[in-house]
C-alpha cells in the first residue's frame, strides 16, 4: 500500500511539472512571425517566420478582394534556413529591392580554422527572387564581392546600392538581374557578380575604411563616416559633385577613452575622472540619416549595453534622446522608406534577433493599457500598409491594412489567443520626495484577492519595465498571481534626473522604492497580503534576496535568478572592462574605498538573517554575474543551515538562450512559488 502511495505521489508530481511545462510553452514559444515587409506595389508580403524553431523566408500574395475575414494562409517558402545550410544560420533583416527581388541579410556559422573565431562566422547578402508562378521554385542569388547593402532603392527597378571597403571604400549601384545564383561558381565566360563592380557603376568613394554611408530617400549618398589620419573617425558630407567636407571628427584618444578596454587608457581616465568628477563620457556617432534635415539617428558607442537611440545635428551640436530599449541591446534601427521615421529597432533577445516596433499612435488611454499600433511597411502609393499591434495583455500581431479593412498575417506568440484575462494598473508611490511609478497586473478571472509576485527588473540603472506585452508577467498572471513591477529610481524610460537618482542606491533607496510600492499595493482588496513572493533576475535577483532578508513579515519566499550576491565581487569581476569599472564606481560604489559599505549591502554576508525559503538559479556560463555569486549564497546558506533550493543550468549564460531554457527556468520558479505560497 505504501509503495502504491509513493508511486502515486511520484506520478502526481511528474504530472504537475508536466502541466507547468505545458502552460509555459504557450507563453515562451518561438514566434510565428518576427518581421514583414510589403512590396513597393503593395501586392506581395515577404516575412521572416519560424517553423519548428527554424527560420524561413516566406512570401504571401495579397488576395484580390480583402475582407475583414481574409486569411493569409498561403505562405510560399522562399528560403528555409535548415535546408539552405547545414550550419547554424539566421536571417537578420529583409528589404524589398523592387517588386521582384528581396534583399536578405544572412549570417552563418562555419567550421573555419579550429579555435580561430574570425573564421567561424560569415555575413553576406542574399537576394530572393519572387517566383514567376505558384509552382515555380524560389531562386536565391548572392553578391560574392565582400561588402554590404546600404540602400535597397525600392523606388527604382532592378538596382540597389552596395558598399565595398578596402584602402578606398566605394559605393556601387548594382543590378540584381545580373547576379548569379548563390553557390554557383562562375565559369570562364561569366564574371563575378556580373562584372558590375567597375568605375562606371561607382556612385561614391572615400579614402580609408568607411564604417557607415548615409543615403537620402532618393538614393543620393549625402555623407560618410570613415577612418581618417591617426585612426580618427570623421563624418564627411559629400556634395553633389562628389567633393568632401568634414563635419565632425573624433580623435583616437576620444574614441579610446570612451570605448577602449585598454588598461593604460583606463588608468589615465580613472585619474581624470576622480580628479574632475566628470560624467561618464558619451561617444554618440551617426548610424543613418533621420527624418529631420541635418539630423542623424545615432548610437552612443560608450554605452555599456547599447539601449539608446539619439537624434543629433553635428553642425549645431543639438542632441536628443528619442528612444530607449527597456532591457535588450539594440542591433540596428529601421525607418519608413519615405519619411525616414524610426519604425523599429532590432534587439538581441533570447539569443536571437527580435524586432521591437515603436509606438506611433498611442493616445493616453492606449498608453495606459500599453496598447500601440506601429506601421512597419507601406506601399509606394501609401494605400496599403503592414502594421504591428499589441497591448499589455494582447500578444503582438501583424496586420495587412487595405482601403477596405485589415487582416491578420502573423503572430509573435502563435499559441496565445489574446486578449488575455488580466488588468493593468499604473500608479505612483512617493519615496523620499521622488514619485516612483509602478505597474500592477491583476488577473480578472474572479473577484478574489490574488497572491502577489513582486518582480524587480534587472539593471538596475537604465533598464525599465514598460506597459507593453510582457510574456513573463502574462505567464504569472495566467498562473493566478498578480504581478508588481516597479520602475524604481535609476530606471530608464523616464528623465535623466530620475536615472541619476539611482546612483549608489543599489542596496539603499532602490530597495526602499520597491518595498514602498509593494506596501502600497498590498492595501488593495484584490491583493492577498498574506501570500507575497519576490522574483528577479540579475539585479532583480539581488533585490529579491535582500528584500526577503530585510522584510520576512512581508515577503514569504524569493526566487533569485542570475542574481548578484556580493557587490564587491561583481565590480572586481575580470569580465568588467575598465570602462564598465569606471561606470560601476560612479553608479554603484568603489570596491576599494566603499568596500565595507558594499559588503554590508551584499546578501552573501547577511544570510544568517534569512528567514524565508529562497530558490537560487544560475547559468554556469554567466560572465556578467558569475556563477561564483550563486555558490557564495549556497555555501553561506549551508553554513547557517537555511533551507533553499538550487539549480545550475549548465549551458545558460546571464540570460536564457533558448525557449527550452526559458520554459524550464520559469516552470521551476513557479513550482517553487506555488509550493511556498499556495500550499502553505
Amino acid at each position: 500500500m505504501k509503495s502504491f502511495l509513493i508511486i502515486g505521489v511520484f506520478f502526481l508530481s511528474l504530472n504537475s511539472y508536466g502541466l507547468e511545462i505545458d502552460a509555459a510553452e504557450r507563453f515562451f514559444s518561438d514566434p510565428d512571425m518576427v518581421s514583414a515587409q510589403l512590396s513597393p506595389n503593395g501586392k506581395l508580403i515577404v516575412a521572416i517566420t519560424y517553423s519548428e524553431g527554424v527560420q524561413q523566408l516566406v512570401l504571401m500574395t495579397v488576395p484580390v478582394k480583402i475582407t475583414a475575414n481574409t486569411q493569409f494562409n498561403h505562405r510560399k517558402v522562399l528560403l528555409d534556413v535548415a535546408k539552405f545550410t547545414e550550419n547554424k544560420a539566421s536571417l537578420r533583416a529583409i528589404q524589398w529591392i523592387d517588386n521582384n527581388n528581396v534583399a536578405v541579410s544572412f549570417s552563418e556559422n562555419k567550421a573555419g580554422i579550429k579555435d580561430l573565431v574570425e573564421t567561424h562566422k560569415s555575413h553576406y547578402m542574399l537576394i530572393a527572387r519572387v517566383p514567376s508562378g505558384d509552382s515555380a521554385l524560389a531562386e536565391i542569388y548572392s553578391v560574392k564581392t565582400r561588402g554590404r547593402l546600404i540602400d535597397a532603392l525600392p523606388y527604382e527597378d532592378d538596382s540597389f546600392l552596395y558598399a565595398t571597403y578596402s584602402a578606398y571604400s566605394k559605393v556601387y549601384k548594382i543590378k540584381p538581374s545580373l547576379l548569379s545564383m548563390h553557390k554557383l561558381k562562375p565559369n570562364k565566360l561569366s564574371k563575378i557578380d556580373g562584372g558590375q563592380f567597375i568605375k562606371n557603376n561607382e556612385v561614391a568613394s572615400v579614402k580609408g575604411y568607411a564604417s557607415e554611408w548615409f543615403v537620402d530617400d532618393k538614393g543620393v549618398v549625402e555623407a560618410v563616416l570613415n577612418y581618417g589620419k591617426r585612426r580618427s573617425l570623421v563624418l564627411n558630407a559629400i556634395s553633389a559633385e562628389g567633393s568632401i567636407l568634414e563635419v565632425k571628427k573624433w580623435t583616437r584618444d576620444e574614441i579610446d577613452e570612451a570605448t577602449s578596454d585598454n588598461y593604460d587608457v583606463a588608468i589615465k581616465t580613472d585619474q581624470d575622472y576622480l580628479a574632475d568628477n566628470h560624467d561618464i563620457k558619451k561617444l554618440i556617432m551617426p548610424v543613418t540619416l533621420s527624418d529631420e534635415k541635418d539630423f542623424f539617428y545615432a548610437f552612443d558607442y560608450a554605452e555599456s549595453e547599447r539601449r539608446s537611440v539619439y537624434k543629433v545635428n553635428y553642425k549645431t551640436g543639438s542632441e536628443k534622446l528619442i528612444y530607449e530599449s527597456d532591457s535588450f541591446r539594440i542591433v540596428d534601427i529601421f525607418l519608413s522608406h519615405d519619411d525616414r521615421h524610426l519604425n523599429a529597432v532590432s534587439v538581441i533577445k533570447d539569443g536571437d534577433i527580435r524586432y521591437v516596433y515603436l509606438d506611433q499612435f498611442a493616445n493616453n488611454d492606449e498608453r495606459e493599457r500599453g496598447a500601440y499600433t506601429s506601421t512597419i511597411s507601406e506601399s509606394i502609393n501609401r494605400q496599403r500598409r503592414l502594421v504591428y499591434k499589441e497591448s499589455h495583455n494582447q500578444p503582438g500581431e501583424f496586420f495587412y491594412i487595405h482601403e477596405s479593412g485589415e487582416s491578420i498575417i502573423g503572430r509573435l506568440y502563435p499559441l496565445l489567443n489574446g486578449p488575455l484575462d488580466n488588468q493593468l494598473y499604473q500608479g505612483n508611490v512617493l519615496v523620499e520626495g521622488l514619485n516612483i511609478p509602478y505597474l500592477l497586473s491583476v488577473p480578472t478571472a474572479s473577484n478574489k484577492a490574488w497572491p502577489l509576485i513582486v518582480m524587480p527588473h534587472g539593471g538596475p540603472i537604465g533598464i525599465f519595465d514598460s506597459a507593453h506585452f510582457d510574456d513573463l508577467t502574462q505567464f504569472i498572471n495566467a498562473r493566478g498571481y498578480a504581478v508588481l513591477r516597479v520602475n524604481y529610481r535609476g530606471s530608464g524610460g523616464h528623465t535623466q534626473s530620475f536615472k541619476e537618482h539611482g546612483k549608489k542606491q543599489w542596496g539603499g533607496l532602490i530597495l526602499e522604492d520597491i518595498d514602498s510600492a509593494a506596501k502600497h499595493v498590498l492595501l488593495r482588496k484584490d491583493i492577498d497580503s498574506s501570500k507575497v513572493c519576490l522574483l528577479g533576475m540579475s539585479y532583480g535577483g539581488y533585490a529579491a534576496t535582500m528584500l526577503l532578508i530585510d522584510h520576512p513579515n512581508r515577503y514569504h519566499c524569493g526566487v533569485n535568478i542570475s542574481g548578484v550576491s556580493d557587490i564587491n565581487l561583481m565590480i572586481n569581476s575580470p569580465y568588467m572592462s575598465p570602462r564598465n569599472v569606471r561606470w560601476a564606481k560612479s553608479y554603484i560604489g568603489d570596491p576599494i574605498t566603499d568596500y565595507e559599505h558594499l559588503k554590508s549591502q551584499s546578501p552573501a554576508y547577511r544570510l544568517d538573517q534569512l528567514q524565508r525559503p529562497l530558490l537560487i538559479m544560475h547559468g554556469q556560463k554567466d560572465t556578467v554575474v558569475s556563477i561564483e555569486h550563486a555558490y557564495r549564497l549556497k555555501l553561506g546558506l549551508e553554513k547557517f543551515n537555511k533551507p533553499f533550493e538550487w539549480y545550475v543550468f549548465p549551458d545558460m549564460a546571464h540570460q536564457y538562450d533558448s525557449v527550452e531554457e526559458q520554459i524550464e527556468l520559469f516552470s521551476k520558479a513557479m513550482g517553487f512559488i506555488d509550493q511556498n505560497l499556495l500550499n502553505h
Partner: protein
Amino acid sequence: MIYQSNIIYFIIRISFAINCLVFSLSSFATQPFEGLLPPEKVGLLKKSEGYLLIDLNISGVGPSFEFVKVVTKKNQRYVNDKRLSFGKRKWSISLQDKSAGLYALKLPQGVYQITAVKAPYFNLPYRMSTYNNARWRFSVVKGQTSYIGQLFIDHERGEDSINIKMNNRFATDYQRIIEAASFFPTAPLRHGMGMRDDFSEELLNSAIALKPENSSCLSSNIC
C-alpha cells in the same frame, strides 16, 4: 722570489674571485625553481615562505606567465597604488602541457604582480601585458596557503585577441580548493587574490566552516 710570490698572490686572488662566483651561483642553485607542481609534489616551506595555489583552465600551444614582486610595506596584503615599484627578480612560469586543475608553488612572503601572460597560437603570437592591473596581483603569506584564482585561457581566440582571465572561484571550486590545500596541513588556506575579498575569511574563520564531508548538497539540487 718576488716574482713567485706575485704569482701566488695572483692565484689566490683569482681563486677568491672564482669562489665568489661559484658561491653566488650556488646560492641560486640552492633555490631551484620548479615551476607549478601538483600540490602533493610540493616540498616543505622555508621560514619566510608560503604556498601559492592556482587553478589552471588553459589551452593553446605553450602558454606561460611572468610575475615580479611588488615593493610594499611590511605585511601589506593589498596594493592599490597606481604606480608600483617592482623587485628585480622575474619569475617565468611555463604552462605547457599542464592539464586543468590546481597547482602549487613555494614563494617568499609578499605581494606579486603578474606582468604578462603569453598565449601563442601557431604563427599568431600573443602577449597580454598586465603589469599595472590589480586584478593580476596576488599576495603570499609565510606559513599559509594563498589561493590566487583560476587562470582561464580560452581555447577560442581572435587573430589579435584572446580571452584570458583570472577568475575568483573560491566558492565555486571550494571543495577542490580545500582538498588541494589539505596537502599543506600546517599552512592554513587564505584568499590571496589582488583585490580585497572577505568572503573566504568569513567562511574559513567560522567555527562551522564547511568541510567536504559536511557539505550535504554539493552535488544535489535540493538541500
